[in-house]
C-alpha cells in the first residue's frame, strides 16, 4: 500500500484517539469568531502563495487554474 495513505490513516487514528467528547453547552470558547476555519486573508494572498510555491493542494477545490507562473 502507498506509504502516504498509511501515514494519513495513522495520523487520522491518532488524532481521533486524542480527543475528548465536548458537549454543546461547553463550546463557548469554540464559538469565538476567530476560531472558524475561514481564511483571514483574502483571495489575493492565497493566489500569491499558489504561484510562489510549486506545491499546491490542501486548499480549496473552488479555484480555477491560471497561466500566472
Amino acid at each position, binding site marked *: 500500500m502507498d506509504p502516504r495513505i498509511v501515514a494519513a490513516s495513522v495520523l487520522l487514528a491518532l*488524532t481521533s484517539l486524542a480527543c475528548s467528547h465536548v458537549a454543546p453547552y461547553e463550546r463557548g*470558547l469554540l464559538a469565538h469568531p476567530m476560531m472558524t*476555519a475561514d481564511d483571514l486573508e483574502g483571495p489575493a494572498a492565497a493566489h500569491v502563495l499558489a504561484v510562489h510555491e510549486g506545491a499546491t493542494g490542501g486548499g480549496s*477545490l*473552488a479555484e480555477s487554474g491560471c497561466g500566472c507562473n
Partner: protein
Amino acid sequence: MQLRPGEPQASLARRSLSFAVATFLVATANARPAMGASDPDAPDRPSTDSADTEGKRDRPHAGRKDDQKPEDTATKRASIELAGYNDSDHVTVVTPSVALGIENVSGASLHANYLVDVVSAASIDIVSTASPRWEEVRHAGGLSAEYKPHDFGVGIGGSVSSEPDYLSYGAYATVTKDFDEKNWTLFFGYGFSHDTAGRCGAGGPCTPFSVFSRDLQRGSFNGGVDFVVDRASLASVTGDLIIESGDQSKPYRYIPMFSAADAAKIPAGASIEIVNAHRLPERPLEQLPLSRRRFALTGRYARRLDDSTLRLEERVYDDSWGLIASSTDARWIFDLGKRFDVWPHARLHVQSSVSFWQLAYVSGAGPGWNLPEYRTGDRELGPLYTTEGGFGIKWYLGTDAEPRQWALQLTGDAMYTSYSNDLYLTSRTAVLSALLFEGEF
C-alpha cells in the same frame, strides 16, 4: 470577463454556472424553515448555523403588519478587497475583488466572488528573451451553493478564470456529515477543471485557441475530518489528491542549452550576459511531463486562549515529478477590546526540486541537438525556501451592540525566497498588502 461568445468552453462554463444557480434555487425553495430549529446545539461551526443567523430567527416581529409579510431571515454578507503585490524581480500585481454571500436559516447558502488581477512584469525571464515589459489582466469568478439543514450537507460550485491567452473553468461538489453531536465532521469533495493555454504576441493580437492551444485537465479529490479536541481547541486533517493530465509547458518559456563543458561553468544567479556568452544557438521551448499526480496532507489547529486565538497549519506535499515540500503557517490573534484584533503572521515553505530540474541543461551539437526530454525554466519547480512575516489588524466598525457587523482589515506580509540552484536568480523579496472592508446585514 474576456469570455468569447463563440467559444464552446465559455458556453460550457456559462451552462455550468446556470445549472449551479438553478440547483440552489430549487434547494432553497424546498427548504423547510423548521429544520434549522431542530439543531440548536452547534455553536462552533462556521456555517449557516451562525449565532447571528440564530439571532435573526428569534427577533420579535415589529408589529401586526409585518406578520402578514414573509420574514426576511437571511443573513447577507459582502466584502471588497484591494490587494497589491510587488517583488524584486520587477513584477507588480494589483488585485481588486468582491465577494457576496447569503445564508438562510434553513441551511441554504449561496456565495459569489469576482476578482481582477492586473499584472505588470519585466522579470528576468522576460528580459532574458529580449521581450518588452508584459502587462495582462486576468478575470476570475466563482459561484457556490451549500445546503446543510441538519447534520448532513451538500455543496456545489463553479469557477472561471480568463486571461487573453488562458482560459480555465471548473466545477466541484462536496458532502459533509457531522457525528457525535458535531464533535467531528467528515467531508469529501471532488472537483474537475479544464484549462486551455494559448499564445499572444507582445502587446499584439492573440492566436485563436482553434489554431494553437494546449489543454490541461485536473481532477481533485479532497477529504478529511474536522474535530473538537477539547473545550478550547479545534483541529482538522485534510488530504488532497490532484491528478493533472495535459501539457502545462509555457509556450513563452525558452530554455537556454549548453554544452557539457560550458554547463559546468555556469553559476547559480548568472547574469544574462554570462548565459548568452556560453549558451548554444538552440533555445527550445520548455517541455514538462504530460501528467502529474499531487498529494498533500494538511493539518490545522486552532486554540482559544484568554484574550487571543492561536492558529497553526502544517502541510506536507509530494508529487510524481519528485517535488517534496513542507509549508508551516502560524497566526496569533490578540483581542484589543471589542473593536480591534491584531495578529503577527509567520510562514516557512521549503521544497526540493522536481526530478528533471537542472541549473543548466545540456544538449548535443546540431543539427540533432539531442535535447533532454524534459526541461524547464520555472524556478518554482526548483529547490527553494521562502520565509514570510507579516501582520494584520481588524477594526470592527459596527454598533456597540454588534461591533462585528462592519469591519475594516489591513494585512501586510514580506517574503524572502532563496533559490539555491536557479540559472538567473539567487533570491527574491516581495511584499503583499491588502485592505478589506466587509459587512453583514
